[in-house]
């Protein structure tokens, strides 16, 4: 690895000052499970590595039913799984984080890093989009809020400027009878990068078992993660019977634009988009039916 300077700020202000001072020559370090590999490969060569893990604001998970979830950008993925509120109220996002790599990776890798690395195959991004997560981005000129579905612009590229930091995710509190789910297809049992990933969040009106809100998002089938708006819309106002879910699956396939690569063909991926969409919509709806969030 090239020689680096290691900075270890303990406040957001200090971290932003460092990013602003060094610009393109600095890179934020969260878990390091992407950045350290990139630095070793010479793909990224920042002179300054700014460790975010000792900034308390970025390591917090704070949740309440009224105010929803604020998830610090540098919280390790494993902490979502270890958190009872996360498992109960955001099971899809939690299971997505629990699928990243291995336990060794999850003890370090963060959801914020998963997003900022900008891989179209990132597991947590469809789950974040499904629950309507927004990013609080802080820079020297102030703050801005960016919806997760607007964050990635191309493979490995995001809207984050060199002097900005992703500080936290803001996720709405779960509506009554709502829940989420995430599933992915990989050739092995663990450790692989998603060939296809689908996240869904569903809200039901239990009086007539109709879906009142739905968000479906896809990983690994386009140059960025995809918010499947039309597919989501096909479910709203409907009972989630097999025919309706099939329509959503077809719309999700239409929203995808996969390529042939070493992990799978475009044709195979389109087929799996349909299969996984049906599964996660079904699971999210089942969880929504039994959830007692209010």
């Amino acid at each position, binding site marked *: 690895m090239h020689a680096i300077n290691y900075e270890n700020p303990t406040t957001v202000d200090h971290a932003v000052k460092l990013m602003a001072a060094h610009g393109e020559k600095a890179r934020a370090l969260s878990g*390091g499970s992407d950045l350290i590999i990139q630095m070793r490969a010479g793909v990224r060569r920042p002179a300054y590595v700014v460790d975010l893990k000792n900034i308390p604001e970025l390591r917090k998970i704070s949740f309440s039913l009224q105010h929803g979830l604020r998830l610090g950008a540098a919280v390790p993925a494993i902490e979502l799984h270890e958190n009872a509120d996360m498992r109960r109220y955001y099971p899809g996002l939690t299971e997505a984080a629990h699928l990243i790599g291995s336990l060794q990776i999850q003890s370090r890798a963060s959801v914020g890093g998963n997003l900022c690395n900008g891989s179209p195959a990132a597991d947590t991004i469809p789950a974040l989009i499904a629950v309507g997560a927004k990013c609080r981005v802080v820079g020297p000129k102030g703050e801005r809020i960016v919806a997760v579905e607007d964050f990635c612009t191309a493979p490995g590229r995001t809207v984050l400027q060199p002097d900005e930091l992703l500080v936290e995710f803001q996720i709405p509190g779960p509506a009554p009878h709502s829940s989420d789910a995430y599933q992915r297809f990989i050739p092995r049992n663990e450790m692989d990068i998603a060939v296809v990933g689908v996240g869904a969040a569903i809200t039901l009106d239990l009086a007539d078992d109709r879906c009142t809100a739905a968000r479906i998002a896809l990983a690994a089938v386009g140059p960025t993660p995809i918010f499947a708006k039309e597919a989501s819309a096909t479910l709203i106002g409907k009972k989630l019977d097999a025919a309706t879910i099939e329509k959503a699956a077809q719309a999700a396939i239409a929203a995808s634009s996969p390529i042939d690569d070493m992990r799978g063909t475009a044709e195979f991926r389109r087929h799996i988009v349909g299969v996984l969409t049906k599964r996660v919509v079904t699971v999210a709806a089942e969880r929504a039916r039994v959830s007692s969030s209010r």
Partner: protein
Amino acid sequence: MAKKTVVETTLNGETVEFLCEPRECLLEVLRDELELTGSKEGCLTGDCGACTVIVDGRSACSCLMLAVEAQGKKIETIEGLAGPNGLHVLQQKFLEHAALQCGICTPGFLMSAKALLDRNPSPTEPEIRYALAGNLCRCTGYDKIVRAVTDAAKTLASGARAA
């Protein structure tokens, strides 16, 4: 350009200080500076788990941690697994079940298994396989490793002392 930093950390229960450049990863420092060569370099990309150590109670790939990040942390390596009275139950079971051949993956597997049993003393087989998913073995085919961990869990659950 970058000056060396003094890092103070707790290593296998003892306070340890070392000097390192920011670009060095924990694995390099363990092996080259501290001469703890039990942790192995298998891939340097966090895929094989041969470098697995336990950091503040959680398994982690020491190849994906900068050594400076060890500051103030509690690190456990394979060298700290055996106790004053002999091998850890996990090590004993690995021998009994022939859960190693060349042995290069073994320190990583033992640390992952210890991290698992420290948190979940009675894991199911799927839970064991999932917890060990980040460790690769080219020799054994994993079956004997899983049996060894299962047996170690049972032995520890019955009240045996770990090490």
